């Protein structure tokens, strides 16, 4: 049975902050197909197009029929633990600091046998549910957990290393003026976040939902205008060292492409409110979060961006918005690489049109803010890196993977 997590005591401000260490990092280029699957929360393995056998680890030819037509595809995620090993004094610094650490050999229902990290409730002979997870080094690893829910299952020490569960963590929601920001606050509260800081820009301007937000227990309103450099750095100076999960809810959606929009001031606004806001946040909060990646139960663990799925391919009806989102997606990859030494993950949550004011004229399906927020928290709990929430986002993901040029043409019609 998993020991339930205890709410961490306040940190002794005189204690040294332990520096993050990382598990081994190298993977082959082919194995990064596993990275892609793990990032999206899928369990995928190489499968032979000729004979249909799954194979692992990644290789160039099918070990059964020698065909070289090996493609990654989603595999059945059941398995049985053949044997388990507990590492008491590992040679690797990351694992040594976390010892004892349990791993096991799992015979997959898909065929191959895999070395996997074991959930504390999964023992030799048990049937397990396999997943690919992104570890602290950003690399895909196999994880075996019980097939059915066990008490306090998500509090498992090894599982928590693979995820960014908000439980007992301190969260900054950067913009609480919007319905998205407010729903994220609610979802974080439900997930057991200990403190939720909520940024409010231009406090002189009232906003819908303000009274309810201010009345919410466990919520601390902080002045934050992410479009403004000084405001962002001032807040980071105050609370930067307390942020375990940062959810960038900066949001500025305006319709329109290039040719029918007069002047550039709306575009400058879009860049300021989205791209520059992200950049200010990253420069202000990123360094201290990276430094706090191993700071106990409530260490810095994740950075979340909410991005439009049209960051992948431009939707001319919201053309300039799409372009700014593409810039933010690119910046998120830079941030991900730079936060990796701290073991802090960057999760991008991709959405289609939202059921909010600025997508008023767009026909359904539109993503409800509530669904976005709960999907975001689910992504953190499962340790995702790329979460596609809603039918539109998932459809665009598939079309982009299949043929980016076709997607471009079709969005432009």
């Amino acid at each position, binding site marked *: 049975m998993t020991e339930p997590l205890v709410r961490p005591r306040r940190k002794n401000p005189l204690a040294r902050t332990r520096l993050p260490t990382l598990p081994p990092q190298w993977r082959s280029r082919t194995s990064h197909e596993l990275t892609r699957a793990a990032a999206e929360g899928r369990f995928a393995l190489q499968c032979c197009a000729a004979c249909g056998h799954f194979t692992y680890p990644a290789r160039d030819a099918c070990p059964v029929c020698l065909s070289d037509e090996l493609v990654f595809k989603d595999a059945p995620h059941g398995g049985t633990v053949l044997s388990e090993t507990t590492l008491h004094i590992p040679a690797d610094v990351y694992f040594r600091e976390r010892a004892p650490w349990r791993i096991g050999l799992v015979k997959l229902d898909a065929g191959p046998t895999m070395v996997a990290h074991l959930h504390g409730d999964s023992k030799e002979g048990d049937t397990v549910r396999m997943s690919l997870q992104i570890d602290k080094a950003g690399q895909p690893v196999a994880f075996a957990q019980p097939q059915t829910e066990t008490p306090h299952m998500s509090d498992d020490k090894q599982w928590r290393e693979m995820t960014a569960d908000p439980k007992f963590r301190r969260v900054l929601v950067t913009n609480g003026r919007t319905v998205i920001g407010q729903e994220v606050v609610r979802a974080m509260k439900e997930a057991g976040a200990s403190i939720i800081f909520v940024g409010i820009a231009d*406090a002189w301007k009232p906003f819908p939902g303000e009274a309810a937000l201010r009345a919410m227990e466990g919520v601390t309103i902080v002045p934050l205008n992410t479009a*403004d450099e000084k405001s962002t750095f001032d807040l980071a100076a105050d609370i930067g060292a307390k942020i375990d999960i940062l959810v960038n809810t900066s949001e500025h959606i305006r319709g329109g492409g290039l040719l029918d929009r007069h002047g550039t001031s709306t575009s400058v606004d879009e860049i300021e409110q989205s791209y520059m806001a992200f950049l200010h946040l990253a420069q202000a909060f990123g360094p201290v979060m990276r430094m706090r990646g191993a700071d106990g139960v409530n260490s810095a663990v994740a950075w979340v961006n909410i991005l439009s799925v049209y960051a992948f391919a431009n939707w001319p009806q919201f053309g300039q918005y799409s372009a700014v989102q593409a810039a933010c997606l690119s910046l998120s990859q830079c941030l991900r690489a730079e936060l990796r030494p701290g073991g802090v993950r960057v999760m991008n949550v991709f959405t289609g049109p939202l059921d909010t004011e600025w997508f008023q004229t767009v026909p359904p399906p539109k993503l409800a803010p509530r669904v976005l927020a709960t999907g975001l928290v689910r992504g953190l709990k499962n340790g995702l890196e790329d979460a596609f929430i809603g039918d539109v986002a998932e459809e665009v993901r598939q079309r982009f993977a299949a043929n980016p040029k076709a997607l471009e043409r079709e969005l432009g019609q």
Partner: protein
Amino acid sequence: MDKSPLQDFAAAIASGKVRIVDLTFTLSPDFPVIVLPPEVGQAMPMRIQRISRYDDAGPGWYWNNITLCEHTGTHFDAPIHWHTGKDLPNNAVDTLPPQDMIAPACVIDCSAEAAKDADFLLTVPMVEAWEAKHGRIPERHWVLLRTDWSKKNFRDYANLKEDGAHTPGPNAEVMRWLVHERGIIGFGTETIGTDWGQAFHLDPPLPAHHYLHGAGRYGLQCLCNLDQLPPTGAMIVSAPLKIENGSGSPLRVLALVSN
């Protein structure tokens, strides 16, 4: 050497006989700007981006880039700002006659009325009552509306409600009257605009802008320290930046007051 009026003036400043009152708010990113429906173009608030601060980007010096709207912070409105003044000669801040940048002011104190009613409207009879006490408003004078609005916190200062801004200002008739019957050079307020908070509903909408700029006159807004000015006799120095074809400009507004 002949003693010129300017030498007397310099001596008066040095001796404190002439006091200088700063009527300007600090240009900060937090200062409220005019709020319009979000689908139309917006005024950019003050943004300050550091270039260097004795660091690797400039080891020995500190400086910033700034971006802001022509109508951010304490600012000047030129006639070209409004459709009524668009065809007038010399209607932009770069062609504004320099002699218009220094002019005397009449200060109408409505702070008691504004304290009671955020929707306080200045009317002709009120200005006539002021004239009965202080004399007729001379031509080419500024009329400054003192409401003590500048002393409020930013939220109360903007005072945005469900139906928009609620801040004191002039009605339509008093603006027509001040411009055409009194020939004022301009009208100044402590609030975010020269017009009343709900002035979209007046006839014509936004009458201060309509009448002032239509007659080639000016606006000053987001003023402070009007409580330090006498009803008459203060001299206003308001020189906007020389922005090419600029519709207005943030500026430092100074009042010279004789002690």
